[in-house]
């Protein structure tokens, strides 16, 4: 079954939640919705599920118009960021609850419940109540409840966001495996670029209720068609600086001079906006091609094995993502290095002009 959204929009109380969304979701595919909070991910999922009716546009299921069809008549399962289970049911009954209405016989229900519990590793917990489980186990139960239904459309709304880091990693890996085996259309909403990259599949980048870009995840990451996509699909957001191309060199801000090599060589003279991801900035010189930027350290955020160094350079703020722990004093003068081959170029309206090479879809997919 293929689900097609045709220019779907949703207006509620005079506020536009979604505008002009067109997507095609194929069976067995993993579709990510990536966007900041309030970008319309949940609204879109509610429309797909049939919980809400779109204000404009149509939903087609295998070519059949299902726009007004109620959620009860659709084959949908959903998992939320909160751990949603029936509080007075045991894990077993929770998982079995979607099957009880389907008229399957007891033995068949039992077989399916146990299979779902096994795939999510909660078999020993079947007699427990949700309150007696850890957060991770509660979400596993909710996932099993959704999977057991074998719905045509499986919606996951930031399912891992309330779990701690270690559990999230573990469950994400297991989910990938489960998605791969299933035949459902899987839709997975996330705010985290890193999570999207790890899950793969295809990604629709949402912002303020609009789909900015849609395509294979890795391609969207390497070739964001607009500055906004670059911002949403980078964590921390892409560093941006105004500049121009004159006299066979790119001038980024008043000071930085970058030779027009590689993809930058195709730039016509004119004004541009240049972008560099935080993980492509370095505090030490790695090779002679790197361009040096003088900056003032403002803050060093240490997160585990990495440090995010916030630095100011002639009125613009930069974030450098560096391996290891670096402690820097406030106001300390530092040098930041960037390679010309990592620079994104956008026009004045934010449209992509040139993306770094070696990041072409064919290469990246390997």
């Amino acid at each position, binding site marked *: 079954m293929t689900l097609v959204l045709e220019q779907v929009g949703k207006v509620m109380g005079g506020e536009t939640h979604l505008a002009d969304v067109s997507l095609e979701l194929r069976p067995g595919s993993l579709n990510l919705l990536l966007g900041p909070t309030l970008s319309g991910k949940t609204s879109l999922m509610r429309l797909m*599920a049939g919980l809400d009716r779109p204000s404009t546009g149509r939903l087609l299921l295998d070519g059949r118009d299902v726009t007004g069809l109620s959620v*009860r008549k659709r084959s949908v*399962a959903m998992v939320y*960021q909160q751990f949603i289970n029936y509080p007075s049911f045991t894990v077993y009954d929770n998982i079995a609850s979607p099957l009880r209405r389907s008229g399957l016989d007891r033995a068949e229900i039992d077989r399916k419940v146990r299979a779902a519990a096994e795939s999510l590793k909660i078999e020993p917990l079947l007699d427990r109540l949700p309150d007696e489980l850890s957060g991770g186990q509660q979400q596993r139960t909710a996932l099993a409840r959704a999977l057991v239904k074998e719905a045509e459309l499986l919606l996951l709304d930031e399912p891992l966001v309330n779990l701690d880091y270690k559990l999230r990693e573990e469950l994400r890996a297991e989910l990938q495996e489960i998605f791969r085996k299933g035949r459902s259309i899987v839709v997975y909403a996330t705010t985290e670029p890193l999570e999207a990259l790890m899950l793969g599949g295809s990604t629709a980048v949402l912002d303020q209720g609009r789909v900015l870009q849609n395509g294979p995840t890795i391609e969207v990451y390497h070739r964001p068609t607009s500055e906004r996509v670059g911002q949403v699909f980078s964590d921390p957001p892409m560093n941006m600086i105004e500049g121009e191309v004159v006299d066979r060199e790119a001038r980024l801000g008043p000071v930085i001079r970058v030779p027009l090599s590689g993809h930058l060589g195709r730039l016509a003279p004119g004004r541009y906006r240049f972008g560099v991801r935080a993980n492509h900035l370095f505090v030490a010189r790695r090779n002679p091609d790197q361009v040096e930027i003088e900056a003032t350290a403002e803050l060093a955020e240490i997160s585990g094995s990495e440090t995010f160094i916030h630095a100011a350079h002639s009125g613009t703020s930069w974030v450098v993502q560096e391996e290891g722990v670096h402690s820097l004093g406030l106001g300390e003068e530092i040098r930041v290095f960037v390679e010309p081959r990592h620079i994104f170029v956008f026009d004045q309206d934010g449209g992509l002009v040139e993306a770094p090479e070696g990041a072409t879809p064919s290469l990246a997919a390997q």
Partner: protein
Amino acid sequence: MGKWEDNKAWFLVLPVFLLVAISAIIPLMTVVNYSVQDIFGPGDRIFVGTEWFEDMLSNRRLHDALWRQFLFSGLVLLIEIPLGVLIALAMPKRGWGVSVSLVLLALPLLIPWNVIGTIWIIFTRPDIGLLGVAINGLGFEFDHTSAPLDAWITVMLMEVWHWTPLVALLAYAGLRAIPEAYFQAARIDGASPWAVFRYIQLPKMRGVLTIAVLLRFMDSFLIYAEPFVLTGGGPGNSTTFLSIYLVKLSTAMDVGPAAAFSIIYFLIILLFSWLFYQALQNVGTGDRQ
């Protein structure tokens, strides 16, 4: 040196200790003291052991008051808890209606208790009271000062009017705390409104309803001011609840029996609160296979 540091910690506990001693332990022990002695005057007393307790436990009027009290508290719980939940379910979830209904609900809770008794005296008077005149106008004889059943109905109405809002407020808070996603999940599962109530809302309200049941049981078991003002315990003894009877005893200077009675009263409330708490803790975990 080490000893000084140990002692310093005692000073930190002292205020709490003093407070609890003055507010609870000393008064309670005074009552215990009275309950085992016959006191004729300062310095003139005899130890009577459990005599007052035996007296009280075989006292017919106390038995009557006790059964009356259980009937009253039982009815209070049976009416107020379901009614409060129904009101909470019917209340608006968003918009201006929320504040309006919250304020309206809270009004009875803000009125001093003896004022409530006075309001209901006037409200139910057969000659000038709005309710009294209305009921008599419909052809029913209604006078809570002469008919015991009318007195009971009036006291129950007053109690339900006064305290159901508290249950409704608690239940409403419990309902609002349920994440929207539960209801969405139920819709996707195709659950009926009854199933949503039975398997999501009710179990999720267990905590607040436990508190509501405990509060309403204790408060109704201790009820004094409102029925005392409204009926004075009459007609006859028909609305003489435990605390009204206790006050009659102690103001008659029967301090010994009154003290013994107080302790029995206290133990009953303690026992029932504990029983309710235990029972409600296990509700909702009973669906295990």
